[in-house]
């Protein structure tokens, strides 16, 4: 089972990648194959950035982070998928690799013509998504060094603050 496109979700935005060189399922666990995805020069040839859709602000990022963590497909993500993944002819469906099976079923609900693969169903997809995470700062060309971490920091605080039921202003006094 091959995968044509990959969805990468990060604190800075969504990115859709096209898989240019299909990986081999059989040799996936070989040392050489694993080392290949470590190397940006080699991995950069296996995938190609189709589109990068950055979040426009902190509130949009937080909303999408909440949707993603629940496995829901937000309207923004729907737009990104609609724009970037071609509607294939009836016989050959386009397949999209995502990390989460809940998100996969949400996307399937909105886009019946897309076949979905997850990291759980296919180890090749899991490895490709690992590679994207490892090299995302370099593969997303508009980004500066450290942008991903900054976005993660802001989003991490916003996400965690929205989760905590207590007032975050108060502090427990530690007794040693």
């Amino acid at each position, binding site marked *: 089972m091959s995968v044509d496109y990959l969805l990468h979700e990060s604190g800075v935005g969504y990115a859709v990648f096209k898989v240019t060189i299909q990986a081999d399922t059989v040799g996936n666990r070989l040392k050489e194959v694993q080392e290949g995805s470590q190397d940006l020069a080699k991995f950069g040839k296996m995938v190609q950035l189709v589109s990068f859709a950055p979040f426009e602000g902190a509130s949009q990022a937080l909303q999408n982070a909440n949707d993603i963590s629940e496995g829901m497909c937000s309207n923004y993500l729907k737009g990104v998928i609609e724009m970037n993944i071609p509607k294939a002819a009836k016989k050959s469906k386009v397949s999209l690799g995502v990390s989460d099976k809940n998100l996969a079923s949400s996307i399937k609900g909105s886009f019946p013509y897309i076949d979905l693969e997850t990291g759980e169903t296919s180890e090749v997809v899991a490895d490709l998504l690992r590679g994207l995470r490892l090299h995302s700062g370099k593969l997303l060309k508009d980004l500066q060094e450290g942008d991903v971490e900054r976005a993660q*920091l802001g*989003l991490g605080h916003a996400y*965690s603050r929205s989760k905590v039921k207590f007032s975050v202003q108060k502090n427990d006094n530690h007794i040693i």
Partner: protein
Amino acid sequence: MGAKGGQKVILEPHRHKGVFVARGKEDLLVTKNISPGESVYGEKRISVQNSENPKEEINGDGPAPATTTEYRVWNPFRSKLAAAILGGVEDIYMKPGAKVLYLGAASGTSVSHVADIVGPTGVVYAVEFSHRSGRDLINMATRRTNVIPIVEDARHPLRYRMLVGMVDCIFADVAQPDQARIVGLNAHLYLKVGGGVVVSIKANCIDSTAAPEAVFAREVQKMREERIKPKEQLTLEPFERDHAVVCGVYQRSG
């Protein structure tokens, strides 16, 4: 200046980069405070002058004051990582500039020391599920911008995939019966090939009826099944009872 005001203290780097030893009346494990002037949980701080010949007293019209570096004392009775370092662990897989995924961050007391170790160029992704501890963790992280607080369940690592990058090391202190599985799930998603795993195991939390050694052995076997090659195991005596720290290296191939 010193732990007990005015005592002479000499700072030496520890074998593990980013960790230091303060040699005074008694030796203390310390880390370089990334947010000088503040304690996180009431721990003692030690200031050391950077210049070669420290000025005895600084007057307003004297020479420019020498810069000082502040260190925070790391209590091995409160931190399993500190206990492991004092126990002589071979490698903690954390060093300045490293990225660490910290599972079971609690209130962030140990996390603050890990943040000191990785320094401003490193990142600590601190995951804690409890809301009450998570609140303290968030507050600690506001002063330390290399800590990314994540209040979420480490059993479902995909939920925080937008907040985490690939890491060099996973440290786990979750004290759950299925902690090997939790570490494995996180490693498959976020740990670099060849990255380190440091797991603190409390025998009672896994199985209170079996002998601690048997529990440790079983956990090591479970880690192997998660493609983590165990490198060493040490108990945390005399700081903790029936605790062990197991370190390993993540191997995706093979």
